[in-house]
């Protein structure tokens, strides 16, 4: 009648063990630390010769803007890029993970990566974590089969679309797309529309702001065109004309202590390390 409880190791997927402990802590008055979200506007658009991705650059922690110029367009492969909205850590790590898996896959298969491969890896991972990995992505790229644009939701569902928006500014951006999208746009028209959609998010959504990043992936070109801060529609409104210089004497020095490192560090001869 022995009660044998074998503690099997978790097989993968999200471990909910800490949730009870977190709930207990919260009940006892300890506040959860706020996580850094990218409250965001991210968009993607398929044009005549490929895909254009766009993103704003504001990262928020609750009501505070913690990063005024962060990068939301992540590299996955030379021909595949991914915009991320949601929890910054989740988008960053999940795209990094897929990037490294895809690179190994490229070495194993000796072929350029396909967008659907990245898509399948992302959705399989997110589905297994039951939506707890809060990453909402716009995945775009060009491979041998053509240009592709997908959206990936935190629970693991995906859509294949000619134009897509995600994040808190998605409605503002989508209103621009829905009213101005045409099939087979040129690269310039596409860039203009994507920038306009991101600007709509920047100016109409509080969770989005600062600058516009673009990434253009074109059929036939090996490398993508990553235009960091393509538009900066929110410059500092006032800059002191005399400039800012902080001459010695601006700050009062209360005490000085100088420790020469020569006495603590021994410099010896040696050979350079093999790289």
């Amino acid at each position: 009648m022995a009660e044998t409880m074998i503690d099997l190791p978790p097989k993968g997927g999200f471990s909910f063990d800490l949730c009870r402990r977190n709930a207990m802590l919260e009940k006892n008055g300890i506040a959860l630390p706020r996580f850094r979200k990218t409250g965001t506007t991210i968009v993607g658009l398929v044009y005549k010769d490929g895909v254009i991705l766009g993103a704003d650059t504001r990262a928020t922690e609750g009501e505070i803007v913690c990063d005024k110029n962060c990068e939301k367009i992540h590299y996955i492969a030379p021909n595949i890029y991914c915009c991320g909205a949601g929890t910054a850590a989740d988008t960053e790590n999940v795209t990094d993970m897929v990037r490294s898996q895809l690179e190994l896959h490229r070495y194993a298969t000796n072929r350029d990566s396909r967008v659907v491969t990245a898509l399948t890896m992302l959705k399989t991972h997110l589905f297994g974590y039951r939506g707890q990995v809060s990453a909402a992505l716009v995945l775009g790229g060009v491979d041998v089969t053509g240009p592709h644009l997908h959206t990936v939701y935190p629970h693991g569902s995906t859509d294949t679309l000619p134009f897509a928006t995600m994040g808190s500014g998605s409605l503002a951006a989508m209103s621009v797309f829905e009213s101005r999208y045409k099939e087979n746009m040129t690269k310039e028209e596409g860039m203009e529309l994507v920038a306009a959609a991101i600007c709509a998010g920047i100016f109409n959504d509080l969770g989005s702001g600062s600058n516009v990043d673009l990434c253009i992936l074109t059929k036939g070109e090996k490398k993508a065109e990553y235009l960091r801060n393509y538009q900066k529609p929110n410059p500092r409104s006032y800059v002191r004309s005399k400039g800012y210089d902080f001459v010695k004497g601006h700050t009062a020095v209360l005490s000085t202590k100088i420790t020469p490192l020569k006495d603590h560090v021994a410099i010896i001869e040696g050979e350079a390390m093999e790289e």
Partner: protein
Amino acid sequence: MTGKQPYVGQGLEAPHAFTLMPGPTKHTQYPYVTGTSVLGIKYKDGVLIAADTAASYGSTVRYKSVERLKACGKHCLIGASGEISDFQQILQYVDKLILNDYMWDDGNNLSPKDIHNYLTRIMYNKRNNFDPLWNTLVLGGVKNGEKYLGVVTMIGVQYVDNHVASGFGNHLARPIFRDEWHENLTLEEGIQLLEKALTVLFYRDRSAINKVQVANITEAGINISEPYALKTNWDYNAFKNPTVGAEGSW
């Protein structure tokens, strides 16, 4: 609830004798039959207000021929989103107001600003009694050459602007207005701008239908169009064959 239920005839204290429901009195907690966005813009000669003609009952589109834009007096038009029965009640209030004003027969009538203020008082007062009229009202009018466009919400927030929207319109239509509105829109340009926004709302708001009315308020008077349909485009090649080059994916 334990204990004897108080009802008439039980010989209980006066307040309880007339309550059939136990517990404190409760008022409106949620709306039932609702209208979606209303859009409004000022243009060169007056004000344009638009709305679709749907009233939803939760997730069903229950009524498809509801007029959510109503003229009030000679100079003013009110459009409402939210609970339709509450809108009908508001129309009664405004009707009485206009009638009383007319009966003074003093050669003057209430301006849109006055009606806006009246509506704000009603909404704010009811909200303070935890018994709100569940609407967001868009009010537009022209009097003595002055164009007026304002909003009152169910909690009594009131403001005026050159272009306004209620509900989903705030997220989908306002960005378009902020980009493309300017002071000297002609009537055609104004209607085009509203139709652009209404089309986006039809694509992206699940409670919107493709049957809309546009009202034009000028110094000369108020004209509410007959309901009509917007042009939509579902023809993109990408929609016909979304997973080309990736058979089996979605």
